């Protein structure tokens, strides 16, 4: 594992709902090495988008970072003053949103929106911004002649490319992509992912790719962080997560998605049930109610076990994972719970 340049430690993000606090992210820890693509996966509501947004510190009005650290370039982003944070935004940490349609301002041309970032945040002159915009459009494969178009004049895939161009504008160190291809059809998804991978390799970027789609992760990521119910269930290299998933939830996710290279490798097996309500999470292991391997001891808080160097797993039975993997590959294992 290369040096971690972003290190999230025990991050806790809470939403105030009425008088209660819901901890959407409840003690998440993971490392992002330099120059890699890390997939942040999990079901809807597991806290992955909240983590992503917490890294920019632009979170919902009723949300607060209530604990933990976000160590980046020797600074704790969870603590530094807003002014210092704002200086970092986009110059160091850029963001690719899920829906590029809604995230581009409909009343301005794309050139204006690129120029806004380049000039206001990058301190460029009008001419420099113009040149850089053309360069960026070339990079993402759009004809620079279309710079003067408005967002609604682009197709979905093109808009996502525009969003990527925007994210690259100021040469950020880290790009957070929140479900960047979810709204697109499969063919365009692949084109965009290829583009992202190519740019990441060429520019040596570090990317966090938030997605619910484990096949997207498998397609371009080097590392993966699997989240469940506000906690990190398992994190490690892509290789480890695919060939040796050690948390039962990761094993379940593998069964629930079609095989990555397109070969129909058998029946898809869903994980029965739904993630717990975070306003009132189960005690002990949060995956216990849905886990086919749950034991009595799972009612207590699970430990973080390093099954291999750089491969921590949040599970009581992490040491038995090799045996569990064999069981987990069988459809009956998961059906029995239902």
């Amino acid at each position, binding site marked *: 594992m290369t040096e971690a340049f972003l290190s999230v430690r025990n991050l806790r993000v809470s939403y105030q709902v009425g008088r209660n606090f819901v901890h959407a992210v409840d003690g998440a820890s993971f490392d992002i090495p330099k120059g890699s693509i890390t997939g942040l996966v999990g079901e809807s509501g597991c806290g992955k988008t909240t983590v992503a947004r917490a890294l*920019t510190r632009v979170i919902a009005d009723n949300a607060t970072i209530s604990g933990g650290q976000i160590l980046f370039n020797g600074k704790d982003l969870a603590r530094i003053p807003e002014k210092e944070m704002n200086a*970092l935004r986009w110059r160091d940490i850029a*963001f690719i949103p899920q829906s590029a349609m*809604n995230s581009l*301002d*409909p009343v301005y041309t794309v050139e204006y929106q690129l120029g806004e*970032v380049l000039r206001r945040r990058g301190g460029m002159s009008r001419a420099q911004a113009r040149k850089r915009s053309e360069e960026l459009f070339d990079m993402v494969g759009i004809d620079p002649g279309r710079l003067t178009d408005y967002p609604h*004049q682009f197709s979905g895939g093109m808009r996502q490319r525009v969003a990527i161009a925007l994210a690259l504008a100021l040469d950020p160190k880290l790009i957070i992509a929140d479900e960047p291809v979810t709204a697109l059809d499969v063919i365009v998804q692949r084109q965009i992912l290829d583009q992202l991978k190519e740019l990441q390799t060429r520019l040596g970027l570090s990317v966090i790719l938030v997605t619910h789609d484990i096949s997207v992760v498998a397609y371009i990521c080097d590392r993966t962080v699997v989240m469940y119910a506000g906690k990190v269930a398992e994190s490690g290299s892509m290789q480890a997560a695919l060939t040796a998933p050690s948390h039962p939830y990761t094993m379940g996710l593998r069964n629930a998605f079609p095989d990555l290279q397109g070969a129909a490798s058998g029946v898809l097996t869903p994980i029965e049930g739904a993630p717990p309500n975070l306003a009132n999470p189960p005690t002990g292991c949060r995956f216990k109610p849905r886990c086919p391997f749950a034991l009595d001891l799972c009612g207590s808080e699970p430990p973080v076990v390093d099954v291999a160097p750089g491969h921590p797993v949040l599970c009581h039975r992490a040491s038995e994972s090799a045996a569990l993997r064999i069981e987990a590959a069988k459809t009956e294992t998961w059906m029995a719970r239902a």
Partner: protein
Amino acid sequence: MSNFKAVGSRLLQLALVLWAVVTILFLMFRLMPGNPMAAYIDPTFTLEQQQQLMAQFGLDKPLWQQYLIYLGNLLQGELGQSFRYREPVGQRIWILLPNTLILTFSSLIIAYAFGILAGAYLAWRRGSWVEQAAIPMVLTTRAMPEFWLGMVLLAIFSFSLGWFPAGGTRDPGAEYSGLLDLYTSRDFLAHLVLPAATLAIYSQGLPLLLMRSNMLDVMKEDFVTMARIKGLSNWTVVVRHAARNALLPVMTSFAIAVGYQLQGNVVVESVFSWPGLGRELVNAVAASDYPLAQGAFLMIALVVILMNLLADMLYAILDPRVSHA
């Protein structure tokens, strides 16, 4: 090319609407009870004299013929003779229309400028004490009847303090060489303050509340969140992105407000004895001066239709999605 086509079809639409308005106006006045000539013809006239007068105004002809004559005259810009003033309606309206337009637009522009800024500010200060105090106040101004507000302003600023004149457009005896001279005089502006203030106070609530709720919606949009993630300044986020987008529906409401305001003017012009189209309309209806009332209605309808056209064009300029559609 398609632009020409769009403008062409829009103008055709406009002509159709005007025709419908003209027809309804024509029928409406003929459906009203009472003989229009009653106010005009002296009861001591002999029947022959009466019939002669009826013939003079064309009122002895069948309805469809009257309608055709009316349309024909309108096409030539001829609005007929006022029964009461015994002068062409067009001439009468021409004198009054500028007064009404000046009052309407000055008050509405003030109301919208204030409403848009205050609405945006209140949305930005959502949940603060400023907002909690301001909203009931705005609702109060919306609830106050215009004539009452006008009278209160008159009582305070004219009768008690004597800061502003009580009515009309100029001091008695003041003479001006031309209309422009009059409209730019201190005298005229002093007369304008109270009626314009009344209308402005009454009208600012709509753009204010509309702007505020639009802003609150737009502030939740992804592109506003993205503007924050981009590290843009608060001002840029709120003004250039949120307010700019929230403004679109407010601009449309401006055109509708002009139409609404022209009705409101009837009341305010009466309170302040403002010699405008609204006051004349009321007087004309009361005096059964049908040609004049018809002309005044038509003028008001024309302004409303033109404002709607303007709003559409403005929207196309402000919102690229419309002009490219």
